[in-house]
């Protein structure tokens, strides 16, 4: 089966992320940081290949790779991989990667299962500079939510172990909150506002309760509730971690919702 060049790079990145995951697992089992560093380098190599895949696809299509489910899932996983790489390199917390990389692999798997055709001609509704602003910011935000989900899983597993130092848990909790603090404004301004402004010029109304719009609205309500619970009610640690996981589940449901509910956002 012949694949375009971008898909070959994408597949290679997919494989490298898988290898990185195995290396991070070995690191967790043997507690040898060497495997962590090799895993991080492998993750970085996968990230570079995925970057090349996106650039090649951009070049082949003549527009940014933000116009289909494959491209969206790919950008989302790319964001999560990049953020994870920076996070691990700066904090040396290789164990976090063991929980985040599976989510990246999941997003890559979704991207590889949906149609991957390149259409040089965007449908008229997508011919707007708002495509770049709205979709890229939404994908980056959801990539951050994926990362926060991985951190939350790491927190929950570590908090179940009796010998985990409290500072370690506090650090994970704080990291999780910081990641959500990056994702939430990106989501608010990019997914909701930029999308509404674009809809105003393309469809004639800011908001039409399309299934994807409702999905985004629910995600926003949820993370708004999360932040209020954290700031005003002091929800931290375990409860905050559970909320972060539920939030990302909503992101995934909203992403695949188009396949079942259709709507104006069903661009393939």
């Amino acid at each position, binding site marked *: 089966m012949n694949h375009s060049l971008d898909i070959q790079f994408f597949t290679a990145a997919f494989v490298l992320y898988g290898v990185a995951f195995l290396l991070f697992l070995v690191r967790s089992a043997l507690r040898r940081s060497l495997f962590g560093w090799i895993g991080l380098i492998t993750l970085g190599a996968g990230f570079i290949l995925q970057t090349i895949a996106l650039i090649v696809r951009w070049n082949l299509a003549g527009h940014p790779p933000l116009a289909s489910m494959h491209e969206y899932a790919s950008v989302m996983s790319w964001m999560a991989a990049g953020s994870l790489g920076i996070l691990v390199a*700066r904090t040396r917390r290789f164990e976090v990667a063991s929980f985040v990389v599976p989510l990246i692999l999941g997003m890559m798997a979704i991207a590889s299962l949906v149609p991957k055709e390149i259409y040089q001609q965007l449908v*008229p509704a997508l011919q*707007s500079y708002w495509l770049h602003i709205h979709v890229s910011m939404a994908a980056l935000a959801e990539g951050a939510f994926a990362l926060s989900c991985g951190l939350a899983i790491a927190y929950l597993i570590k908090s179940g172990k009796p010998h985990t130092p409290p500072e370690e848990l506090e650090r994970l909790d704080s990291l999780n909150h910081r990641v959500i603090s990056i994702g939430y404004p990106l989501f608010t301004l990019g997914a909701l506002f930029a999308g509404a*402004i674009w809809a105003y010029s393309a469809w004639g109304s800011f908001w039409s309760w399309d299934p994807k719009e*409702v999905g985004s609205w629910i995600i926003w309500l949820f993370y708004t509730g999360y932040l*209020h619970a954290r700031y005003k*009610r002091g929800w931290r640690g375990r409860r905050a971690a559970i909320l972060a996981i539920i939030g990302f589940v909503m992101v995934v449901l909203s992403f695949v919702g188009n396949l079942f509910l259709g709507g104006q956002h069903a661009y393939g």
Partner: protein
Amino acid sequence: MRPRSRNMLTQLYELLTDTSFAIVVLIALAVASILGVVVVDQVPFRGDYARMAYPDRTGDPIVWLLIHVVPEQPFRCIFFRTLLALLSLSLLACTIKRWRHHWRRALTVLPPPAGIFDAPATRRWTTRMDPRHEELTGFLKKRFFAVRLRAGDDRLTLSATRFGVSELGSVITHVGLLLLIVGALVMASTGFSELVWMRPGDTVTIPQPGFQVTLEDFRIETTSAGRVSAYISSVALREDTTLVERTEIKVNKPLRHRGYSLYQSSYRQDPTKVHSIDVVLDLGSLGAGDGAGERGAGEEVPAQTPEGMPGRQAIPNRFLEPLTVTVPWGERIALPETPYAVAIDTFFADFRIGEEGPGLDSNEPRNPAALLRFYKGDSLAGRTWYFLLHPQMPVGTGPDLPMRIADYSPQLTAGLEVATHPGSGWVWAGFAFVSLGTVLVFLLRREQLWLRLRTVGSRREIALIHQGAAKQAPEFAREEWETQMTALGVQLVRWLEPDGDPPVRSSNRKA
């Protein structure tokens, strides 16, 4: 009664400002939204539509639920609007409650709290340096700090704050959300939106501001691969017959004029008009001795080849192949090798026979049919219905030609949505406020810095605390003590101690 009512109002205010209440409303809105989208997608008949769809089953419990409980428009029903109203009240109450407090925090340079210089996070060291407070103030003001000084006999206390405006972020965000909800309600209640189907030449008149929009042309542009690249309506905008402008309306490029917007919303084939019809004349299919068209519908086949019409033997070889003739709407086209000309009389995209004769069953091209007029010379020779999907069964009084409709070029009509957005000003203001508030909340953090200089014996003691900023990243720290401080704190210490020995003790001691 008075104290009691005040008590009730207080309780209501406390409820509305309670975070738990806000979270419950957010959850309720999320659940209602999920139900709403599922209902819209999965339950096609609701309310009066269910009554019409199931007229004989209105007593069934499920149908009763569909009629009386499931809202026709879930996102406009009273329940959903009540939740939005509760959210608005909560936002308003929280804004009122927080405003003064946040405003004060944003503008005030707070003096050092009691005992702050003894806190574990405070760094203290003694020095021979004696920094002038003007220089110290200048150092901080250059870095956007608002500074207050308090000089005592043996000590100088400096309080500084920057990015205090971030304290207003959450209030501004709440105000913005309120504006958005108000704008949305105004738009939903008083806005206008209607889809207008226009053929080229049609004019839509907007009476109140007084202007007309005439569709001059509608076209669909495609790529060589057949993908649609643009839907374009060329329109002329006039006010009192004076041409204001000629422009194109495309997806993503609406026409806005005097509070109205016209969007390229849709298009369809005109169900009663075509651009042209391709008919195939297959004279070669006639057998020897067959007549070729002189017979009217219902007449017997003549025994002889009629005058001017060749029988099979007389047909030249080139006519053994079917011949396609394009008949444009409104034109009369001669059929080659026959004495007839043909013109389109009527077209139905979905033909049906009703009580009043032929008619249109739907606007979809499910059974395209055309009534063609045949002329011989200038006189009408008959009319026959031809069906695209049933080529073997023409019906009518026209000549019995071996002819069928092969294809047709539809006449496209543009669907332009005419809309007003009366609450859009509120919505734009809401976007601006929430965006500003979000930036203030998440990108800025209020920082407070307190510094105390006091004389201890022959030396000066400096105590410094910098709150609100993140600690120095370890990779940028040159000394161990630097990892415990903020980047600005490190900068300040180095400015105070340019000569260098590590000035900050790793452990604090009581002053």
